[in-house]
C-alpha cells in the first residue's frame, strides 16, 4: 500500500482516537507551534512558509506573460515601471508589488511517461518517473515519481528543527481531485514511489484539523438526555442494579466536566472557519469547495498547524466542466484547441482568470491576517508559488511553465518579471528551498539538472 493511501485510511480512525479521547489525549495542546512561539521570539521573526498552488492543462502564454521582462530592459526603466499584469491576471493586481513572474523555467525531465504525466508528477519532484504500467497518450508507460517533492523536502526540513516544527508539518489540499491514484493525479511525493493523496473534502480536512472539538460538542449535547433516561429507568430497578446506573450517571457528570475543560484548552488564536459539512463534492460546487479549502489552509497556517501546504486544483488532463464560468466543455479538451480557435481561447482565458482569482483569494487572506506574534501580515512571511504541469495546453510543452510567485517567504525581490531563458526548474526549487532557510540543500531532483546552482532572485 502506498504511504499516501495508508495515511488516508487511518486518518479517520486516528482522528477519532485523538480527538475523542476526551479525558486523555484531547488535553494535548491543539496548537503544536504555540509553544515554540512563546519560547523563541527569534523563530517568530524568521518564520517562513511555503504554499504551492497547482492548476492544470497549461496556460495561455500570450495572456499570461507580461510584455517586458526586467532583465531585458535597462535597469532604471524596470524599477520605475514595475510589473505590468495582463488582464487575465487582473485579480492579482492588489498583490502586484509582491509578485515575481519567472519565464524561461523549464521542466527538463525526460524519460518515460507522456508530458502530462511528467508535467504533473515531476513538477515538484524534478526527477524522472519510474518505469511502469501506466500508459499515457504517447511515450512509454511509466510509474510513480522516483523521489521526494519540494514541498515535502521543505516540510521535512522544518520538522527537523525544534523552532519550526508544527503539528502537521504540511497539509495537502485538493479541489475537485478525482478519487484515483496515478501519475496524473499526484504531484506531492514523500519519496521514491510514495505519492501523497491530497484531501479534497473540506469536511474531512476540517475534521482532521478541528474534529475533536466538534465531536465533543456533539457528545455534550446529548448528555442531558442520557442523564434523564438513566434516572428514569433506575427507578424500576433493584438496589444492586441501581448502583450500576448511579455509577453510570457519575461518569456522565465527569464526562461533562472533561468536555468543558477540553473546550477551554483548545481555544484557537484564530477561530476555526465556518465549514458547511454538507457540501457535496460535485463539480458544480467547486468554487465553494475552493473557498473553504483556502479558508482552512490559511486558518491552519494562522494557528501554526503547518508551514507547508499544497493546493491542487483538479488534476493533469482534468476535464472539469466550469459551468460557474458558463463553460460547458471539459477543460482538457478546450486546452487542446488550436490557438486560432478564438472561442476556445476566450474560454481558456476565463478559466485561467478564475484560477488567478483563487490565487488572489489565497493571497488576500494571507495579506489581511497579521503575522501572529510577528511583523506585518502573513503574506510577508509566506512564499506562494503558482504552478502548472505544462507551459501551454495545445503544444504540451514543458518549457516556460507559468511560474508566478507571490509573497515574502523566500526573500525574493518582487514586483517584476524575469526571463530566465531555459533554466531548469530544479534550480528554481533549490533557490526557493534555500530562500526558506534550507541552506544545506545543494541539489534538488536530478543532479545533472542542477548545474549552475540556485538562481539569483534576491
Amino acid at each position, binding site marked *: 500500500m502506498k504511504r499516501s493511501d495508508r495515511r488516508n485510511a487511518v486518518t479517520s480512525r486516528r482522528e477519532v482516537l485523538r480527538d*475523542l479521547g476526551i479525558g486523555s489525549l484531547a488535553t494535548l495542546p491543539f496548537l503544536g507551534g504555540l509553544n515554540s512561539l512563546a519560547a523563541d521570539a527569534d523563530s517568530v521573526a524568521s518564520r517562513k512558509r511555503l504554499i504551492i498552488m497547482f492548476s492544470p492543462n497549461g496556460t495561455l502564454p500570450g495572456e499570461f506573460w507580461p510584455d517586458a521582462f526586467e532583465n531585458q530592459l535597462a535597469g532604471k526603466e524596470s524599477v520605475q515601471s514595475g510589473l505590468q499584469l495582463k488582464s487575465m491576471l487582473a485579480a492579482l493586481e492588489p498583490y502586484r508589488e509582491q509578485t515575481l513572474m519567472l519565464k524561461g523555467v523549464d521542466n527538463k525531465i525526460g524519460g518515460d511517461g507522456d508530458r502530462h504525466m511528467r508535467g504533473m508528477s515531476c513538477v515538484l519532484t524534478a526527477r524522472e518517473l519510474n518505469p511502469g504500467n501506466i500508459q499515457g497518450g504517447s511515450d512509454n508507460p511509466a510509474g510513480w515519481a522516483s523521489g521526494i517533492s519540494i514541498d515535502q523536502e521543505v516540510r521535512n526540513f522544518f520538522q527537523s528543527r525544534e523552532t519550526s516544527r508544527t503539528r502537521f508539518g504540511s497539509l495537502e489540499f485538493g479541489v475537485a481531485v478525482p478519487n484515483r491514484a*496515478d501519475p496524473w493525479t499526484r504531484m506531492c511525493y514523500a519519496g521514491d514511489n510514495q505519492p501523497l493523496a491530497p484531501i479534497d473534502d473540506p469536511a474531512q480536512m476540517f475534521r482532521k484539523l478541528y474534529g475533536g472539538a466538534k465531536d465533543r460538542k456533539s457528545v455534550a449535547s446529548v448528555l442531558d438526555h442520557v442523564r434523564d433516561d*438513566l434516572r428514569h429507568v433506575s427507578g424500576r430497578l433493584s438496589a444492586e442494579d441501581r448502583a450500576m446506573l448511579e455509577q453510570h450517571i457519575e461518569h456522565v457528570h465527569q464526562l461533562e466536566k472533561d468536555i468543558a475543560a477540553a473546550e477551554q484548552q483548545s481555544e484557537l488564536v484564530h477561530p476555526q472557519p465556518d465549514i458547511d459539512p454538507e457540501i457535496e463534492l460535485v463539480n458544480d460546487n467547486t468554487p465553494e469547495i475552493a473557498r473553504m479549502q483556502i479558508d482552512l489552509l490559511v486558518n491552519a497556517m494562522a494557528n501554526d498547524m503547518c508551514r507547508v501546504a499544497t493546493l491542487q486544483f483538479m488534476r493533469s488532463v482534468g476535464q472539469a466542466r466550469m459551468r460557474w464560468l458558463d463553460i460547458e466543455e471539459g477543460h482538457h479538451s478546450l486546452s487542446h484547441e488550436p490557438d486560432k480557435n478564438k472561442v476556445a481561447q476566450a474560454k481558456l482565458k476565463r478559466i485561467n482568470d478564475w484560477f488567478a482569482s483563487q490565487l488572489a483569494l489565497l493571497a488576500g487572506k494571507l495579506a489581511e491576517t497579521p503575522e501572529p506574534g510577528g511583523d506585518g501580515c502573513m503574506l510577508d512571511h509566506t512564499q506562494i508559488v503558482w504552478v502548472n504541469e505544462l507551459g501551454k495546453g495545445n503544444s504540451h510543452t514543458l518549457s516556460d511553465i507559468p511560474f508566478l510567485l507571490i509573497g515574502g517567504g523566500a526573500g525574493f525581490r518582487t514586483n517584476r518579471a524575469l526571463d530566465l531563458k531555459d533554466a531548469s526548474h530544479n534550480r528554481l526549487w533549490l533557490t526557493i528551498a534555500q530562500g526558506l532557510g534550507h541552506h544545506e540543500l545543494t541539489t534538488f531532483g536530478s543532479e545533472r539538472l542542477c548545474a549552475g546552482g540556485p538562481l539569483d532572485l534576491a
Partner: protein
Amino acid sequence: MTWHLLNADGLDNARFETGAEIYRQQCADCHGGDGQGNETGYNDPLFGDGKIPEISRVIDQTMPEGEPELCSGDQAEAVAYYIYHEFYSLAARREKGFAPKPRVELSRLTVDQHRHSIADLIAAFTPEPRYESKGLSDYRSRRGNASTQDAPLAEQAGLRGTYFDSRGMNKADSLKVDRVDRRIDFDFGAGSPTADMKPDQFAIIWDGSLFATETGDHDFRIRTENGARLYVNHDAVESRGRLRDDSSVAGSVALIDAWVSSGQRREESARTFLVAGRSYPLRLEFFKYLDDSASITLEWKTPGGVWQVMDHNVLSTAPAKRSFVVDIPFPADDRSLGYERGRSVSNQWHQATNEFAVAAAREVVARLPILAGIESDTPDRFDRMEEFAKQFARRAFRRPVSELEAERIAQTLADNADNLDGGLLCVMLMILKSPSFLYTNLPMDPSSRGYEQASTLAMVMWDSIPDDALLQSAAEDDLKTDQKIRDQANRMLTHSQARSKLTGFFHQWLEIEERDLVKDRDLFPDFDTAMVADLRSSLLRFVDRVVWSKRSDYRELLQSDYLLLNDRLRTLYDPSFDPTLERSPLSDQFRQFKFAKQRRAGVLTHPYLLSAFSYHNSTSPVHRGVFLTRNVVGRALKPPTEAVTFQDDQFDQGLTMREKVTQLTRDSSCMACHSVINPLGFALEGYDAIGRFRTKEGDSPVDTKTQYVTADGDSIAFQNAADIAKFAVDSEDAHRAFVKAVFHHLVKQDPDAYGPDTLDVLTGKFRDNEFNIQKLVVEIAVVAARKT
C-alpha cells in the same frame, strides 16, 4: 438457616450434630465458627464446589493441620457433612447470606455485543448487495464472445474471476473467462491465463466475500509485478465493466492500491480490523500491460496467525454487505466469573462508547443516501430523516420508541434545521449513548414484554440486536410458549453469527486464546509458527465439524479417534506418512486421519492443546491435569495455597516427568487438589510436549496408569486419555459443568437465577437429546427468553 429446616429436607440430624461438635472442638479455632476463617488461623473462608466425599477425604488426610490422625474415618465424614450443609455449599452460603441470592443482573453490552449490535443496526438499513450478473450478461450480449455459461454462478467457495482481454492499457475489453477461483495465487509467466487470451495485456476482476472467524487486525498482502487494487469491506456498488485507470468501485477507497507499477514484483500490504462471524465484501482488480510477466498472489494474516494464501475456506462468491466495523479500543469485559459479562461501567468504557458512537454516527450520516435513500437534495429531507431516526432507534432500543423519545428526535432535528446532517449526528449519538441501547436487559413497559424476550433471544443467540423476524414476533407477542421460542432459536441457529458465538464458547472452553506454543528449537525443529497455525486450524476445524454436524455430539468432541491433518501436520503426527511417497494434490488441505484404538481421544489429545499445556521443552502433567479437571471432568479447583514453580534443574535428571511432579506435589496441602489433578495429567504422559504419541520419555518407558478418585469418592483406573474421555461422557458432573459453561457464555448470567433446578433440567435434556450441542443451545435460549 436452622437445622430444623434442613431436617425437613431430609438431613441426617445425628451426623450433622456429631460433625458440628467435632468442628467446634478441632476446627473452629482456625476456620472460624462459620468457616469464615480468622486472622490467626486460616484466612480463606471454607466454601467451594466440592462434594461431601471429597471434603471428607481431604479432612481425613490433612486435618487438623499436622495431626491428621486426630480426625479421620467416620469423624472426618461427619465434619464434612456438617460444614457442607452449614456453610460450605453455595446453597448453604446463600441461605446464610454469605453469598448473594441468584438473580438476573442488569448488564450492559459486552464488547462483542457492542460491535455486533452497531454493525447489525447499520446493516439493517443497508440494501442487499446485488450480484453483478446483470452487468456481465449485458457485457456478454454486447460483446457476444463469453466463453462460459450465461447463468449467474451459484454461491461457491472461492472468488468469481472474470478475465478480460484488454485494449489500450487496462481497459477491460472482451470477457474471455468467467469462473470460480478457489485461491488467488497465479504465476502466468510471460503468457496469458488461458490459451485464447492475449499475453501482452489482460485484466482480471475477482469478486465475492470473505468470512472472518476472528476479531482483530487482519493483514492483507498482494504480491504482483503488475497493477492491482484490493477492496475489502467496501460498499458494494454496481461497477462498470471497464477498468481503465479509474478506480472502478466508485466512491470506495481501496485497502491496497498497487495500480501503478514499475514491473518489479513487489509486496503491498495493509491492515484492517474485522469482527468475527461476519462476511465482508472483497474485490481484487488486476491488470497486466506490456510488462514482461504477470503474477498475482493474495494473502492474509489473521490475528495471531501467519501469512497464508486466502483460500476457499474463507472465500465465497456470494456478495456481502459492507459491515460497519471499527477498531475502537474497549477495556476488556469482566471475566472474573470465567465468562465475559457486562457488569462494570468504567471511565474507559465510557470513552470507548463515545468514540464508537461518534464513529458510527458519522458512518450513518455519510452513507445516508445508501442507508435511507436520502440525498442532499431530497425534498422532504427533514421528514425522511426523522422517520429514519425513529426506525433506527427502534432497532437500537429493541422495542418501540416512546413518545418522549420520538419527540426528542424531532426536536433535535428541528434545532439543527440549518444543518440537518449535524442534527442527525446528534440524534445518532443520543440513540447510541442511551441506556436503552447500552444495557441489554433494562425493564421495558409491560406492554413490551415480547420485545424483552426478543431482545434476550438475540443477545443469547447472536450477541446482537433482533432481526426483522424477531421484531415481528415481538410485535405480535408471539413468543408466549416454549415451543415458539424454540422455533425462533432454531431459526437463529442457522445464522452465521450463532455459529460464531458458539465458536467463541469453544475458544474459551478450550482456552485457545493467547497461547504461547513456542517450543525448544533444538528439540522440536519442525515446530514453527506455521505448524502452530496449522494445529490451531486443525483443532478449530475439528470442533466446527463435530458441533455443526447433524448429531452435534458432545461425546464425539471428547472421544473421536481421528485428527484433521494437512500434509505438513502429517509429517509430525502421522507416523505412517511418508511425504516422498505420498503427496496430496492440495497439500495444505485438511483431511481426516484415523488413529489406532485408544490412541487419540478428541480434544483431550489434540496436539494443539497438548502443546499448549506443556513447557517449551517438556510436558506439563499439572497444566494438562488442571485443564482436564476444570474443563472436561468439571471439578472446581481453588488457586494453589502457595505458588510453586516447576524448575526442571532441581530434580535428578534420571527421573521421569511423572516422578518429578509426584515429588513436587507430595505435600499434604498440595495433595488436596493434586490428588485429582495429577492422575489426569499423568494419563496423558503418552504425548510429548508437542502432542506426539510416545511410549518412552528419554530412555525410560512412559507410565500412564493412574488411579483417579471421583468427586463421589469412587476410585477408577485410567490408562490413557480415552479412559478419561469415557469417564467424562458418562459423568453427570462433567455434563453439568459443560452445560453450565455453555449457559454462562450464551446468557452471561447465573443459571440459578432462572430457578434452582435450571441446571438439572438442562443437563437432563442434554442427556435425553443424545448430548446434542445445538439442541442444548436452543434449550438454554428457551430458558433465558421464557416469559417470567
